[in-house]
């Protein structure tokens, strides 16, 4: 093994090596990050196009573009692909892979081979999903029994694909936990860690604890369909509600697997573009773990109308309100960081501010849904759809786009067109609100989700929502074109375009293969903005 051949004074960017095999066989965390970034982004675009098709059907009350069964298939695909193939691995695996070793001052993750193996497992999961497309499921992404046990679509392959993906998620989380424990540079104490690392750590814990449970749940569903097991079938003495309990025991924590990394991203972007130290560092750090802990105790708030006992419903409603506390702690600390800061409206900062605004709406409407009396009325209406999209797009996707714009120069060594990026942000922000804000009203007026048709009285709000989806799609299109053209003919990026203090910005863009020529000695936290230290950078 000839690893002594690299001379230390030669800078070899990690993107240097070309060829398919150099990517698919790589053990470099930065390249694996790109593999995830490209795959998850493709799935995001595919599922986004499916969403546009659904909104197109909903332009008019009648079912004139697709038939109801196709519509059921479309929302199942949209939900499953977005959740399992984009949002869960999106930020956590792509930016987690790229950033964790760079931010903690390590050369790679703890288990580089396991890391690429996790990506192969992800690919295997996607391959199985593609096979399932021959006869795609129409159950919704939640695969609720008893319908999922009886429909003649291919639920088995689809859930098996998700099961396989779960392994990828577990192994990635495991890798990140060990990396954070064992690979930190000297002096990088827990309380000096960038907040993105705290967020990734909390996410990894959730991935480890929750994913096995959805794994066994989906396996049980598969045996229900193949071996005739009856755990979820009342005719055989089983209980369909049990499936919901099992499913949400994973899938509610999974909501936080999706959102916590985005919160980490926001905590990185805001201090840099406010030129102020992050306010309430420890509160933000521990609130990530707090959210992770509480997230395991709230699953039954998805089931208030499923026939659970009144006592259980009240306890779960109360516990659900508790989640609002650590979440609000974060939001207040971000705002306190902005206060009296010298704010620069970089495109990444715009996404961060968009996150705070939209996520707050998403979070507060979540409190409505957590309240028992309100939920009985709002359950399974467009209100839930709007709430969920304010959290998932307004939160996670805004964080994802923000991260994309923020770390783009570091990752690819190129700059994108900042003006175009701001224009794209504007269309995305406006389009998103026009699409989803009307859905709150639709929900309150009683429009149920998951129908291809609707009463004529909802037409104005429904078509407004569809027009909004076109603006949103247009904005994303501009953003994608801008980022891709930046890769092709953007100017070269400097090592540290934003004068950030975090470790990943102290090395060349794109980083050399070995990240750090010498493992850095860390003496301070990464948020000392506006202090004397900044002048030295």
């Amino acid at each position, binding site marked *: 093994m*000839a690893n002594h051949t690299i001379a230390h004074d030669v800078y070899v960017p990690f993107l240097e090596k070309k060829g398919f095999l150099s990517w698919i066989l790589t*053990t470099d965390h930065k390249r694996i990050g790109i593999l995830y970034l490209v795959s998850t982004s493709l799935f995001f675009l595919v599922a986004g196009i499916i969403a546009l098709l659904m909104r197109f059907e909903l332009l008019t009350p009648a079912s004139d573009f697709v038939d109801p069964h196709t519509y059921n298939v479309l929302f199942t695909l949209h939900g499953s692909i977005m959740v399992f193939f984009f949002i869960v691995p999106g930020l956590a695996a792509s930016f987690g892979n790229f950033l964790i070793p760079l931010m903690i001052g390590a050369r790679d993750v703890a288990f580089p081979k396991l890391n690429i193996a996790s990506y192969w497992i992800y690919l295997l999961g996607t391959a199985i999903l593609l096979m399932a497309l021959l006869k795609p499921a129409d159950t919704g992404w939640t695969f609720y029994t008893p319908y999922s046990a009886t429909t003649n679509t291919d639920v088995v392959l689809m859930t098996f694909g998700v099961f396989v993906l779960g392994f990828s998620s577990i192994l990635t989380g*495991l890798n990140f936990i060990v990396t954070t424990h064992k690979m930190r540079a000297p002096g990088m104490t827990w309380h000096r860690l960038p907040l993105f690392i705290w967020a990734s750590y909390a996410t990894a814990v959730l991935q480890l604890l929750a994913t096995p449970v959805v794994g066994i749940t989906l396996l*049980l569903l598969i045996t229900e369909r193949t071996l005739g097991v*009856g755990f979820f079938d009342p005719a055989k*003495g089983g209980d369909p509600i049990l499936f919901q309990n099992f499913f949400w025991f994973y899938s509610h924590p999974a909501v936080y697997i999706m959102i916590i990394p985005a919160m980490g991203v926001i905590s990185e972007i805001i201090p840099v573009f406010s030129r102020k130290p992050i306010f309430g560092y420890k509160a933000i750090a521990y609130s990530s773990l707090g959210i992770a802990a509480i997230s395991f105790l709230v699953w039954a708030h998805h089931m208030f109308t499923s026939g659970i006992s009144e006592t259980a419903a009240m306890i779960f409603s109360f516990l659900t309100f508790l989640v609002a506390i650590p979440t609000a702690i974060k939001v207040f600390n971000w705002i306190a960081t902005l206060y009296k800061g010298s704010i620069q409206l970089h495109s990444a900062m715009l996404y961060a501010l968009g996150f705070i605004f939209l996520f707050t709406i998403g979070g507060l409407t979540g409190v409505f849904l957590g309240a028992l009396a309100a939920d009985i009325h709002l359950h399974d209406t467009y209100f839930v759809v709007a709430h969920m999209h304010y959290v998932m797009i307004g939160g996670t996707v805004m964080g994802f786009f923000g991260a994309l714009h923020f770390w783009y120069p570091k990752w690819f060594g190129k700059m994108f067109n900042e003006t175009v990026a701001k224009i794209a942000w504007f269309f995305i922000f406006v389009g998103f609100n026009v699409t989803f804000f009307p859905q709150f009203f639709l929900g309150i007026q009683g429009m149920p989700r998951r129908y291809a048709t609707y009463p004529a009285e909802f037409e104005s709000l429904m078509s407004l929502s569809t027009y909004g989806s076109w603006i949103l799609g247009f904005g994303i299109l501009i953003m994608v074109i801008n980022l891709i053209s930046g890769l092709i003919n953007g100017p070269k990026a400097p090592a540290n375009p934003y004068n950030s203090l975090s470790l990943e910005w102290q090395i060349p863009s794109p980083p050399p293969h070995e990240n750090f020529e010498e493992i850095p000695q860390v003496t301070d936290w990464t948020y000392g903005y506006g202090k004397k230290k900044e002048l030295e950078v």
Partner: protein
Amino acid sequence: MAEAGIDQSHDHHMDPATEYSSSKLGMWLFLGTEILLFGGLFAAYAIFHARYPEMFYEQHLELNRTMGAINTCVLIFSSLTMAMGVSAIKWGRQKTAAILILITIICGFIFGVIKYFEYSAKFSHHIYPDTSIFFSLYFLMTGLHMIHVFIGLGILGVIFVLTLKGKFNSKYNTPIELGGLYWHLVDLIWIYLFPLLYLIG
């Protein structure tokens, strides 16, 4: 080629002590996820046992307690030989370690053979996973456990060959220790399955 060297260097970027403690931490975390995977089945067991105690009692009489008990002893014994194998390699006794790992593997096979006879007996009495909730649980829990036994045997097989080839010694033996941890988990899960399924009373 220098480039070939570059990628290799990513695999060995830790000092041996960190590598050892990282691997162990990783393995323990993984074992935690395995327990959670079985946790779903244990939860289902608890719920349905509480709901249908008579059915569980009556149907568990169909299971062969003797075979279950023998299998429990076989697995506990195999855990002992595995633990001895780990100790042996830490003292640098490669041959002893290899023999002990081989005995562990043989025990695993004996377990599989006995389980095969048990399953065949059930099938010949027309008892299948869809017969009742209890037998669904029986087949799924022992079946998932059996898959883990097979995976464990595969891991131990590789470790056995590598031990024979002298890849491990008193200084470097992490794979044996990790394989041992996995095997103990397989054993531990069975120790819970046996009373839950065979000894209801």
